[in-house]
């Protein structure tokens, strides 16, 4: 498909966001802002134990609490066949526990009451008796002969969930054996959590008279929810309406269907009232989809001159108690085999073993296109380890190994075909802007004075826009996305999408795409998402897929409108359709461009004066099945200074030069990058959900799960290059996740660079002061 030049200046402009007026005036409508008549409140009783037999649940004390109407347990759900539900990853998950609990904060019972306070009172009063069982916390011991078997409900009596491979293991082994230099490194990407500022929640409203269920829910993928609900609760799909109101941040944690939603639906059916359930922060951090938790071992084989030849990666993935990660169904490790990154490897092999532990389920979330963050971190870290082994500047090593621009489209040894890229140009721009050579000179001087300064580079490649339907589906649902546009008689348009934004600015950027394609100002295009009754079917917003997939649908849907409008234009211009051209936002007569009609003219005519034989109206729907992924890339450079006394790392500078193809709204792109970098910074330096030996979650609220404030957050410098995607209708690639995918390695590379005079090659995240201090002490550095 050819790239069309933006037909109106609307595209590429830093338009102020259309969604903002309601948010800055407190008029957003988030889930908890909705109150329905007769609405009840639900609170969940959760397990304090990580692994225990469920001996007895006594509802009576809770039922005696004033205002409490019902207590629902797993046994109650079992009667309806709803105590387990299927996960998106092909496993199943308990809705309310029966028999035993498998992680701390697992859902055990639900209390429904007349008020929020009474629901909490009731939950505190439910008496549950447990018998503690041996706890499995460390994934590395999950397959030990003596390890407790967690999922005795499964046929396979093992804690192993699956084994997955990609690439040619023989060829990789051969190349590795022949390599002049090999390096090997264990790298752990810790368990962390997206934790948007709004927690998850829902209101289930089953109208007994109509038989219709409306579920208001904090969802990034409302249509998927509708279909899953229809399958789980065996309700006819047309009788379910899922509404995702304004969403207060998602970052992937609002893709999966959580047990609380299913219980709320049951509670609404049982009580005949709407039932609201909103998580506390503790419930959110303690039970919803975590991110990462990948134990990786990476090996690179290279020549002495630093030309990489082979990459081999073994990974142990900790999936928690249920395999409920929201991945494309045929891709259990997601897109992890993007791990050859920006470099030209002749051979590569990756395998992943997934195991159960007594921790909450999840695995794919936090601004990450299906395990791409782990992959990018791995290769960018490994390149620095190789540079250290070869005593080469990491920048030079990268220069030597970039896939050259002339080899695109480029197919990696692990099977991906990169659409477009110009890595050297992007890289040199970044290094020039930050003054890389000067920084290295400064570093030499500082090192001579005993100071610890580090420079870290990440030159990453992302894979986003899941995905082409031949290979990508979730529970069989192909991963297309959709747009529906109606142009009204007065030339104003309504555009609806199957995705659901959570702050990405779709109401503005999609209006810019549609407006630019139709010659309308963005202000005249109203964008609507989130209501399954009105929006066309779509798979949702995550994995940076909105622009690559729904953005493509927006452009192509608008072009479908334009095709019809062209017929009307010919009718109005009294010429043949083949004589009409679309130029500068108008339909013009070829050779007489002053004879022109606007889209508004055509829209009015579509309803008032359609050409004979043409169906009236001006509407279209488009389901866009992307021919390939898009592959955004970039170069990030971090400059850090370490306090040798406390181990504190100060990020002095951070530059991000992104290439996300054609930019729709530069202001929004910069905002996405700022936010993603801040999350990457948090992951690199402070965020982890650790568990103690009993499986207690040690970061179950914001006093322990650390979200950086404005004080810790560095100042971000941004710039970009533009390499359009050749297959995307407007050449865009998507950007939301790049900064989070690309930045952790830049931070860690910078810190390890600062410590490299001590012989340090790697330090695992999070790079807390204590961890750095310990490295310094182990190498004899003591300071005040």
């Amino acid at each position, binding site marked *: 498909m050819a790239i069309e030049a933006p037909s109106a200046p609307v595209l590429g402009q830093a338009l102020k966001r259309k969604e903002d007026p309601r948010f800055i005036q407190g008029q957003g409508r988030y889930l908890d802002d909705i109150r329905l008549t007769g609405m009840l409140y639900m609170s969940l009783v959760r397990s304090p134990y990580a692994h225990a037999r469920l001996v007895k649940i006594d509802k009576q004390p809770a039922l005696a609490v004033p205002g409490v109407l019902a207590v629902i347990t797993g046994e109650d759900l079992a009667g309806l066949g709803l105590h387990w539900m299927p996960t998106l990853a092909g496993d199943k998950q308990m809705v309310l526990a029966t028999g035993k609990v498998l992680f701390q904060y697992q859902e055990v019972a639900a209390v429904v009451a007349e008020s929020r*306070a009474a629901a909490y009172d009731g939950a505190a009063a439910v008496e549950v008796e447990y018998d503690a069982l041996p706890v499995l916390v460390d994934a590395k011991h999950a397959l030990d002969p003596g390890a407790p078997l967690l999922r005795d409900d499964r046929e396979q009596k093992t804690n192993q969930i699956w084994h997955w491979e990609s690439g040619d293991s023989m060829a990789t082994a051969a190349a590795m054996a022949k390599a002049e230099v090999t390096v090997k490194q264990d790298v752990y990407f810790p368990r962390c959590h997206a934790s948007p500022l709004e927690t998850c929640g829902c209101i289930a409203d089953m109208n007994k008279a109509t038989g219709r269920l409306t579920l208001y829910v904090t969802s990034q993928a409302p249509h998927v929810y509708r279909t899953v609900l229809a399958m789980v609760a065996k309700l006819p799909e047309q009788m379910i309406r899922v509404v995702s109101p304004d969403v207060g941040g998602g970052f992937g944690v609002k893709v999966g269907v959580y047990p609380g939603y299913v219980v709320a639906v049951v509670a609404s059916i049982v009580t005949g009232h709407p039932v609201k359930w909103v998580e506390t922060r503790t419930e959110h951090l303690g039970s919803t989809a975590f991110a990462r938790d990948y134990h990786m071992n990476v090996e690179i084989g290279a020549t002495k001159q630093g030309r990489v030849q082979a990459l081999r990666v073994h990974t142990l993935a900790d999936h928690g108690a249920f395999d409920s990660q929201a991945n494309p169904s045929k891709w259990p490790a997601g897109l992890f085999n993007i791990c050859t990154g920006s470099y030209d490897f002749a051979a590569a092999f990756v395998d992943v073993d997934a195991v159960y532990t007594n921790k909450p389920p999840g695995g794919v979330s936090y601004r990450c296109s299906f395990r791409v963050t782990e992959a990018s971190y791995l290769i960018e870290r490994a390149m620095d380890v190789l540079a250290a082994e070869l005593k080469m500047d990491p920048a030079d090593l990268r220069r030597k190994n970039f896939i050259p621009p002339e080899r695109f489209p480029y197919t990696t040894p692990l099977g991906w075909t990169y659409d477009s890229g110009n890595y050297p140009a992007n890289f040199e721009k970044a290094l020039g802007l930050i003054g890389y050579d000067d920084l290295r000179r400064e570093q030499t001087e500082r090192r001579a004075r005993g100071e610890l300064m580090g420079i870290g580079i990440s030159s990453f490649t992302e894979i986003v826009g899941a995905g082409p339907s031949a290979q990508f589906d979730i529970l069989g649902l192909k991963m297309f996305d959709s747009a529906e546009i109606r142009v009204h008689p007065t030339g104003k348009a309504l555009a609806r999408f199957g995705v659901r934004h959570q702050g990405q600015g779709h109401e503005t950027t999609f209006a810019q795409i549609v407006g630019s394609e139709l010659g309308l100002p963005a202000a005249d295009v109203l964008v609507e998402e989130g209501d399954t009754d009105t929006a066309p079917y779509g798979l949702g917003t995550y994995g940076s897929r909105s622009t690559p997939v729904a953005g493509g649908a927006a452009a192509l849907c608008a072009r479908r409108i334009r095709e019809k409008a062209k017929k009307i234009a010919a009718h109005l211009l009294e010429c043949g359709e083949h004589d009409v051209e679309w130029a500068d936002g108008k339909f013009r007569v070829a050779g007489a461009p002053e004879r022109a009609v606007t889209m508004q003219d055509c829209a009015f005519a579509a309803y008032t004066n359609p050409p004979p034989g043409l169906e009236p109206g001006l509407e279209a729907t488009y389901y866009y099945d992307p021919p390939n992924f898009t592959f955004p890339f970039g170069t990030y450079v971090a400059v850090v200074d370490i306090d040798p*006394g406390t181990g504190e790392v100060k990020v002095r500078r951070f530059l991000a030069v992104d290439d996300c193809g054609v930019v729709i709204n530069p202001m929004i792109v910069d905002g996405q990058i700022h936010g993603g970098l801040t999350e990457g910074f948090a992951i690199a330096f*402070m965020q982890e959900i650790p568990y103690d030996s009993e499986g207690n979650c040690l970061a179950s609220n914001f006093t322990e799960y*650390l979200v950086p*404030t404005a004080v*810790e957050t560095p100042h971000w410098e941004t710039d970009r290059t533009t390499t359009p995607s050749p297959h995307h209708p407007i050449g865009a690639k998507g950007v939301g996740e790049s900064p989070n995918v690309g930045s952790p390695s830049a931070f860690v590379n910078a810190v390890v660079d600062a410590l490299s005079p001590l012989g340090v090659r790697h330090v695992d995240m999070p790079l807390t002061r204590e961890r750095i201090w310990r490295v310094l002490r182990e190498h004899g550095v003591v300071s005040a």
Partner: protein
Amino acid sequence: MIPAAFEYAAPKTVAEAIALLRGADSGGKILAGGQSLVPMMRFRLAAPNLLIDITRIPELRIFKEESGYLRIGAMVTHGELERSAMVGERYPLLASTARVVADPIVRERGTICGSLVHADPAGDWGAALIAARAQAVVTGPAGERTMPLDDFLVDTFTTALGEDEILTEVRVPTPPALSGGNYQKIERKVGDFATAAVGVQLTLSEQGAVEAVGIGLCAAGPVSLRATAAEGMLIGKVLDDASITAAAAAAATQAEPTADTRGAIDYKRDMVRVLTSRALHAARAAIRA
């Protein structure tokens, strides 16, 4: 989350508040800023029967210098102290502490006395005010009694307050000439409890020797700690790199931190050393000629 139900009273005088405490038969709890208590109530780890809100007692708002002391009433907030020009000029230890307590919004409601009564060893004011040799003024049915803050802070979450007593005021000696002070804190991010922190109050003689020094350690034991050995070895000494290094090492030896997500024992103990050294240097720099 919403706390368990409780009764609420907002007395207008200290005497009324004490009477309410007595009447509540140990089920009563004083509510000042509430910034530590209310979150615990929301988790239902604390569930008092009666909350006695002392924010409406005018006499507890006292905040002035008098008879050689800075008097800080029970309702003086961290923010009020942080913004006080008088504190900024004459009490650099308190000024540098106030800036790092919790976060700026919590500081608007949280009180210095409330933080002391909470007696969390990772609370900043315990260490800072021990260094400042502050006095606790406790009011009960029998009237007022005054004690060094060292004696007021008994153990983790435990003070010398009786069931029917209120910490009505804390008194900080006004530093003489040639005095300086500083508070050094390591926190993982704004709003976190200290990983370790050290407060120093220092007075030098005309000759430059240490005439008086107070060193308080935060998050370095079950309760805010006075670094007695370090203090002892500095008296009469010239404050130079050698004496500071030795004192810092002594403070670290005395520290008894516990391991938690903020760090292991050896790290925290070493941070006591580093911060003691830095606070001593900074306190010396804060002395005005």
